[in-house]
């Protein structure tokens, strides 16, 4: 089985689509390879992609497909002898266009003894194209704005759109003499239209080299924590533990660099103790960063745990009123707010009884109803924020959907893929306090499951 790396995926993008790969695409295919698929299988999958079937070949004859592959790879049409050569193969049973691509890629990786009529000049052109495509993808991965922009106009039906066409035009210009520079890449990226993310061009959170350390104060753990920080025990969860000036600290977040646009729906993915909740608390203003610069231009509302502002000796009504006063500073409209809470939570007359008499599910119903009754600019939700029993769950799900829809920006930390897919489009993967992946949700989830991202990969 051939080991698949990001450069081989890049070659497939060039061969099939004639454009540089997007970082999320590379991650997607690397994750796919991790499931046990080799390069030959992936080449076959590429030939079944909508971008290839509905944009590149569009039911055209096989000789057109061969020509297109040559144009994409070598910047020239296939010569007569070459065409005959490939046609003779393709007329055989069990040999199709993906096998041809696979064979060509092996040749270009210099692993094939047969040259298939490919000349030294062709190889040079291809090297230039591959170099240009790598530069393009690397530059693209440095900005989430570009990553968001470099997408098709539509996937169903497939419409290539301005952004991907810019990528095609960029590679089309590459020839034997044209060794592309970073400046050329930036000019091409600049041509990508901003229209698709019109509403996502206003940064609301900017983080630069943010780190967060959590000091451990209890002195009774002094001896034990020193053992831990000396490495006597290995931990698979949580941030790094270390000793600083005789104090034990946890490095909850390290070197976090991030820009979040208004309206983004972000999933926070990672193991327990990877830094998701610390991140939520940081953007909510509960924690302050230890180092780095943090600029937040939006009111982030945390929904982390089921806690009330008032004593549990008091009624649900009192808890709702205290919350309403805190949010609005007055009681205008409180009656409507209260009616909504009573109706939605289903607590009825229980609303006048002390909270301590409620079951856990009733508490969950009440707090969920209170917190989702008011619109917020930006939400930071932790998965621990439950919704009570199954009967309430369906109601809560609908309410949550409209609540989130009405919010500008969303951060959702959860281990439930279903939940993340329902609400989010961008995924950030945390590991031991570091952001190890940031991109489209599918790719982020794939990354999380595979952890396959070596130094060879494109996103840096």
């Amino acid at each position: 089985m051939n080991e698949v790396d990001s450069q081989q995926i890049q070659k497939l993008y060039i061969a099939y689509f004639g454009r540089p790969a997007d970082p999320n695409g590379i991650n997607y295919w690397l994750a796919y390879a991790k499931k046990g698929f080799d390069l030959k299988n992936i080449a076959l999958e590429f030939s079944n992609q909508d971008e290839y079937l509905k944009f590149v070949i569009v039911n055209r004859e096989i000789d057109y497909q061969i020509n297109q592959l040559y144009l994409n790879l070598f910047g020239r049409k296939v010569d007569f002898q070459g065409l005959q050569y490939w046609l003779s193969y393709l007329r055989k049973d069990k040999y199709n266009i993906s096998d041809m691509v696979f064979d060509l890629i092996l040749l270009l990786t210099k692993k094939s003894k047969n040259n298939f009529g490919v000349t030294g000049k062709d190889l040079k052109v291809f090297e230039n194209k591959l170099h240009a495509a790598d530069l393009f993808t690397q530059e693209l991965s440095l900005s989430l704005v570009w990553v968001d922009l470099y997408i098709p106009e539509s996937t169903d039906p497939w419409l290539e759109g301005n952004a991907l066409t810019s990528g095609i035009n960029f590679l089309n210009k590459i020839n034997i003499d044209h060794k592309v520079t970073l400046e050329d890449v930036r000019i091409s990226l600049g041509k990508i239209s901003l229209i698709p993310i019109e509403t996502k061009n206003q940064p609301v959170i900017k983080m630069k080299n943010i780190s967060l350390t959590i000091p451990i104060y209890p002195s009774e753990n002094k001896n034990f924590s020193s053992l831990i920080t000396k490495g006597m025990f290995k931990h698979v969860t949580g941030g790094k533990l270390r000793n600083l000036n005789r104090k034990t600290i946890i490095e909850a977040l390290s070197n976090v660099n991030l820009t979040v646009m208004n309206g983004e729906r972000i999933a926070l993915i990672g193991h327990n103790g990877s830094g998701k909740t610390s991140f939520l608390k940081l953007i909510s203003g509960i924690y302050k960063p230890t180092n780095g610069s943090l600029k937040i231009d939006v009111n982030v509302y945390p929904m982390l745990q089921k806690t009330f502002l008032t004593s549990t000796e008091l009624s649900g009504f009192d808890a709702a009123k205290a919350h309403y006063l805190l949010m609005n500073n007055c009681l205008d409209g409180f009656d409507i707010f209260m009616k909504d809470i009573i109706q939605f939570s289903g607590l009825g007359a229980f609303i006048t009884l002390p909270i301590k008499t409620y079951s856990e599910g009733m508490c969950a119903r009440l707090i969920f109803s209170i917190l989702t009754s008011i619109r917020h600019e930006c939400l930071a939700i932790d998965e621990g924020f439950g919704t009570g029993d199954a009967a309430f769950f369906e109601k809560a799900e609908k309410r949550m959907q409209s609540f989130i829809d009405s919010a500008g920006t969303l951060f959702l930390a959860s281990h439930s893929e279903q939940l993340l897919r329902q609400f989010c489009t961008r995924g950030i993967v945390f590991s031991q306090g570091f952001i190890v992946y940031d991109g489209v949700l599918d790719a982020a989830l794939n990354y999380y499951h595979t952890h396959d991202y070596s130094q060879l990969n494109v996103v840096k």
Partner: protein
Amino acid sequence: MLLNNIRFAFKTRRAWWYTATSRTRARFARTTLGSFWLGFSNLLSILTLGLVYGTVFKVENLRSYFVYLGIGLILWNSISSSISNAPYLFSHNSSNIRNMNLNPLFYTFEEWAFQVQTFFQSFILVFFVLSLIEKTILFNFIFNSWIPLLNFIIFIYWFPVLICLISVRFTDVAQLIPIVLQLVFLTSPILYKKESLGDISWITNFNFIYKILDPLRLSIIDGYVYYSQTLILLFMNLIGLLFSFWLLKIESKKLPFLV
């Protein structure tokens, strides 16, 4: 900083005042007399202590001793309650501090409102009973006690906040507080007159809780206010207030990790 904090206090005033009121209601939720107990329990203490110590100290004018003891005790109880509750202020709100992005000032204002509400609820009943004994105290209170009362109310905000911030860092302080308060009570002229201390009456000069309590008691009982001393006290109180705000701002960064 002062202005920002006052702005925050004003903006959220209804919420913290309401949660403070709720705490009082929660405290007496199962009782028949409700918050009436606040004044009633104080009256019982005054009556008992007045009879016992009036006899022990061979007080000649028991009526004026009751007024002296009653006013002193009610002021002391409020100060003492504010200080003894202080070490646990943030730990009682730890879940909210760790999960809500609410300025910690909110909890300090709520606690202060709770103490102020408790003070006035007990003070009104005690004062009403004492004014039946000594009618002039009503007149004195209305016309002379404003600045000493202001000093008292500011003090029961900033000093407990300071204790609270120290206790959250040095947890042993919480254990010391009841002992120190007991010593301060016994060395303060509340059960007895200052003159009874004789040669050691100078110790009251270093007793800053007494320095807050005495001018207010004096203004109510005798209708006398040492304005220069009271204004210096007000100035010191404002410095204390600013210092507590500053310290809270510094410590609030670490607060979620400390509680």
